């Protein structure tokens, strides 16, 4: 079809389209590249009063440290301010949230996809409403009970809360994924004498991985990107990366150590870069799956 003359684009249109794409890619990528580059400079360069060329060449960085690149910001954040602790906590929280929400979500999503009952529909609608609740409104409901039960501030509480907040989305996504697996598959297994759970374990689990991986990516992102819940529910010692960065902002700006925060921000961005690099296809298919089917 690309050979047809009618589809061939006139030169001006081609130029406009190319310029637009270049502009968008710069808009999307430049802030990240700029901050990564700047995180290896000293503060007077990255926040330069004179000219932003200083940030590119590192004029003052050379004066202060003798080299155009410095890891001072990273050292300050990771070692002096113990950012590694937050990274460790984030790893625990995100991995546990992903595993637990997928376990609950596959069971629930499978049941919703295979039940034609009225209440299955209502559970899905309730999940949609729950999905729309701003997380911070729920957090204001947690705090007082959690103080009373004395479970505030520790990682397991946050993990369970994030799993629950994640459930509506996970259920919807896995529900629509299981709908695409033919019913005949598990029904024939049951004819052969499997119970419903055996059919799920022996027949469905082996074929469900693509959908589970995609859903898992989004569960991971939700736990990783969360600020409202973790910043309110974790004590200062147990903070994950995002609330830690926000607490850097308050304390660090006065002491002139903004570069710690910049280094921490870049450190928190790197895992997401890697994630997109390896799972681009799954992320795109996950975003569209909900749209095309729902």
């Amino acid at each position: 079809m690309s050979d047809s003359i009618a589809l061939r684009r006139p030169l001006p249109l081609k130029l406009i389209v190319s310029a637009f794409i270049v502009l968008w890619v710069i808009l999307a990528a430049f802030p990240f590249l700029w901050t990564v580059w700047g995180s290896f400079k000293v503060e007077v360069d990255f926040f330069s009063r004179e000219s932003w060329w200083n940030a590119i060449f590192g004029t003052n960085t050379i004066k202060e440290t003798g080299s155009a690149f410095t890891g001072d910001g990273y050292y300050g954040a990771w070692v002096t301010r113990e950012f590694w602790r937050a990274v460790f906590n984030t790893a625990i929280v995100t991995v546990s949230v992903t595993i637990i929400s997928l376990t609950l979500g596959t069971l629930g999503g499978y049941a919703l996809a295979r039940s034609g009952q009225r209440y299955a529909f209502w559970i899905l609608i309730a999940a949609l409403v729950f999905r729309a609740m701003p997380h911070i409104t729920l957090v204001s409901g947690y705090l007082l009970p959690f103080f009373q039960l004395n479970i505030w501030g520790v990682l397991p509480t946050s993990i369970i809360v994030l799993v629950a907040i994640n459930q509506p989305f996970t259920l919807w996504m896995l529900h629509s994924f299981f709908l695409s697996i033919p019913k005949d598959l598990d029904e024939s297994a049951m004819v052969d004498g499997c119970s419903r759970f055996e059919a799920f374990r022996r027949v469905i689990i082996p074929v469900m991985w693509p959908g589970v991986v995609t859903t898992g990516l989004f569960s991971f992102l939700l736990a990783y990107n969360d600020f409202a819940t973790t910043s309110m529910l974790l004590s200062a010692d147990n903070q994950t990366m995002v609330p830690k960065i926000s607490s850097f902002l308050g304390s660090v700006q006065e002491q002139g150590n903004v570069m710690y925060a910049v280094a921490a921000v870049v450190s928190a961005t790197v895992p997401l870069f890697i994630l997109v690099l390896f799972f681009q296809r799954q992320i795109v298919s996950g975003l569209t799956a909900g749209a095309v089917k729902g």
Partner: protein
Amino acid sequence: MPHKTFFAFILPSLIAMVLFIALPIVSVVVQSFYVEHGRILVEVENCQPFGGCTKEVRVDADATARLEQEQPLGQFNGLGTYLNRGHLAVNELGAIFADNRGLADVLTRIYNLPFYKALAFTLVFCFVVTPLAMALGFLIALAVNTIPRFIKGPVIFFSLLPMIITPLVGSLILYWMIHPQGIIGATIQDIFNDPRLSLRASPLLTWLSLLFYGIWTNAPFSFVVFYAGLQTVPADTLESAMIDGASRWERIRFVIMPHLAPLATFVALVQLMDNFRVFEPIVGFSAEANATSLSWMIFNDLSGDAQLFGSAGATSVLTIVGVVILLLPVLVRTWREFNHKVV
């Protein structure tokens, strides 16, 4: 599937949602009817050898702590918190409507009430960012659809970044660039030759930069969904439109856009829900002086030294009402479709 099996499968997930989503909503509603205890005051007589005696009113810390221990919710306040100045501000509204100098005066004075200020920004953010981000996403999708295959991968990779990024981190990255000493902020000062020009100083510029952030971070989602939709546009319809003499624009307007309309409804719904909870960019941009949102108000009540559970609860309930109003058209439609199907 028998009822028993169904519930066996879904029970863990259901318990999680009931315990941590449904119950907290109830808890928020209950909290909103209570208000913190006042401090218990005692009068203490302070006598010094030469100064004589002075009477002093002091806070009885022990008794206050004991009272808080016994009744952690605080004292019952009914709808008081909803109606006070920090929330619906009924009395203040009455005063404004009773005595004012024209519409502009009414609007500025209402905007000065904290709840309405937050509501105004939240709604503007929702209804400006959502359509603009969708339009930008649609344009990017159209453009990316025309470029050669081998560049598509990298373009999609970079396009995903603003969406996938942690909201707080993303807003900090942009904030540092538009900071008066950051690359964009400094350049703008240079261009306008005004060393005091700062995006933080003026409310208008703060709003604009927050809206820009919103479009930047929301556009990729619409792009990805629309781009996937474009792959499913039937080639036959496009071809027959061309044979009928439709121009490039007419093909977009009358073939592609109607084809993508259901997707657009879905994208709009998801983005409205997400933008209604706008919160992190306000923290990241330190914009609270000029722009606040409903979520930020709740966060602010909870993170102060004295946690105002009552006030946070009332704002939360009002926010939930807002979400339900936002979702109402969808819920009504689903309800009708479902009944239609059954009958």
